[in-house]
């Protein structure tokens, strides 16, 4: 059943997977909001590592730049402006928690069985290309030009809207 051979890639995959899952679990279970944002940033970094493992360096570093960098800083910035005292912990409901654990285990078992039982057809080996940054750029400005332009318009509208709202409040 566990017919895997341990390679360096395999080990690194597990390290990143642990970081992602650990970050996500801590994000839910921690109490202070700032700690949550930090564990979320850790999960983002783990994801970036996963992209590097998949030969997608461009996506990986954009992930670090946008999510681990900008989004996390903005969230922390917003949180600092407001005051967050540790909210009192909710009363524990034993029955509710036991049922949740059983449900989660069942789902895990089902998924694990389904993945192990299914037969993945070996497709042709994937070639990431000589320069996937160049390839992404060319595709974006030829094949996907319309969605790209539409997204630019959406962002511009959001940007102008934000300025208008900020101006209204200042008056």
């Amino acid at each position: 059943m566990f017919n895997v051979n341990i390679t360096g890639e395999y080990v690194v995959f597990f390290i990143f997977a642990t970081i992602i899952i650990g970050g996500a679990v801590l994000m839910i279970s921690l109490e202070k909001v700032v700690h949550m944002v930090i564990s979320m940033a850790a999960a983002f970094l783990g994801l970036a590592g996963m992209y590097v493992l998949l030969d997608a360096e461009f996506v990986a570093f954009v992930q670090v730049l946008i999510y681990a960098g900008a989004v996390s800083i903005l969230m922390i910035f917003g949180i600092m402006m407001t005051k967050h005292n540790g909210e009192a912990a909710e009363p524990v409901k034993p029955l509710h928690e036991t049922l949740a654990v059983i449900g989660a285990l069942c789902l895990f078992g089902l998924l694990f069985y389904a993945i192990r039982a299914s037969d993945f057809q070996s497709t042709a080996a994937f070639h990431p290309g000589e320069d996937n940054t160049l390839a992404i750029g060319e595709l974006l400005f030829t094949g996907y030009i319309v969605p790209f332009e539409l997204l630019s318009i959406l962002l511009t509208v959001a940007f102008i809207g934000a300025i208008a709202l900020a101006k209204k409040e200042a008056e």
Partner: protein
Amino acid sequence: MGAWLNEPLTWGSALILFLWSTVFLLIVLGFVTYAIYYERKVIGWMQLRIGPNRVGPFGLLQTVADIFKLLIKEDTIPRRADRLLFIIAPALAFIPSFTVLAVIPYTEKLYFADLNVGLLYYVALSGITTLAMVLGGWASNNKYALLGGMRSAAQMISYEVPLVISIVGVILLSGSLNLRDIVAAQGGGWFWSWNLFPQIIGFIVFYIAAVSELNRTPFDLPEAESELVAGYHVEYSGFRFAFFMLAEYVYVYAIAALTTVLFLGGWHAPAPFLDFVPGIIWFLLKFAFIVFSLFWIRATFPRVRVDQLMSLGWKVLLPVALLNVFLTALYLELFVK
């Protein structure tokens, strides 16, 4: 280095790479030690003082003594501080500062990583240090530290935008995000084929934004000692404080090296008949000049106000950087294609 990077990883080559990075770390630490000494000397001379001259010959051991003092100092953590974040913030600030150095090519042969998206890697990782500064300021539970952290977040985010957009012109000209290709594209024999001259607007925007990203005078608002005591690291002492300072000076190294690579032609000689001088000498000369100019600016400019800082970033640098991208694209479309 290229030969070791491309062969399959064995324990032997892993050991060699590890030893190389250790040597590199020691070189960077040596640079930081003597950059601080040199900075104090230069600023001293510019202000008609002597600068450090007591510890060792010409005061050469002054920084070593300062670092030793920091290391043996009592390590204090405020009682109401957020202990965990207070402890990890200095490390989180330092690690990216050292990792970004991996993509800088020194000569044709001497480089530590040949990354396809080198420039993006640099910009992305340096953003993590900002996160660490904000966290350090917040975790200290001190109003000055928090104000410093806030200012650093606002300033870093505002200036990262023109910094990145000013580089776009260089990327357009060389057609690659790989720093080695960018240097190779500037080799044409004479110094006017460096990106400095075709991209003079981009260079000016890049340089101003870089000084701001380094939190140095005239943009040292996050740690303005006369307003905020010391900014985000006011509660830090001993080796944790040393780590924040170290990160700051390693970024001086990184930005000076990046400017050399992007705009000053890296290892290329300024004229064809000077080619007999090894590339690393040219790199070091340009690098040293950029480092000196940073100290020079610090000694001669007053600090700007917060509102001036923000309006300079958003109302001047950003439109100018965008204009530069537009002009470069227009030039490429009309004259190159």
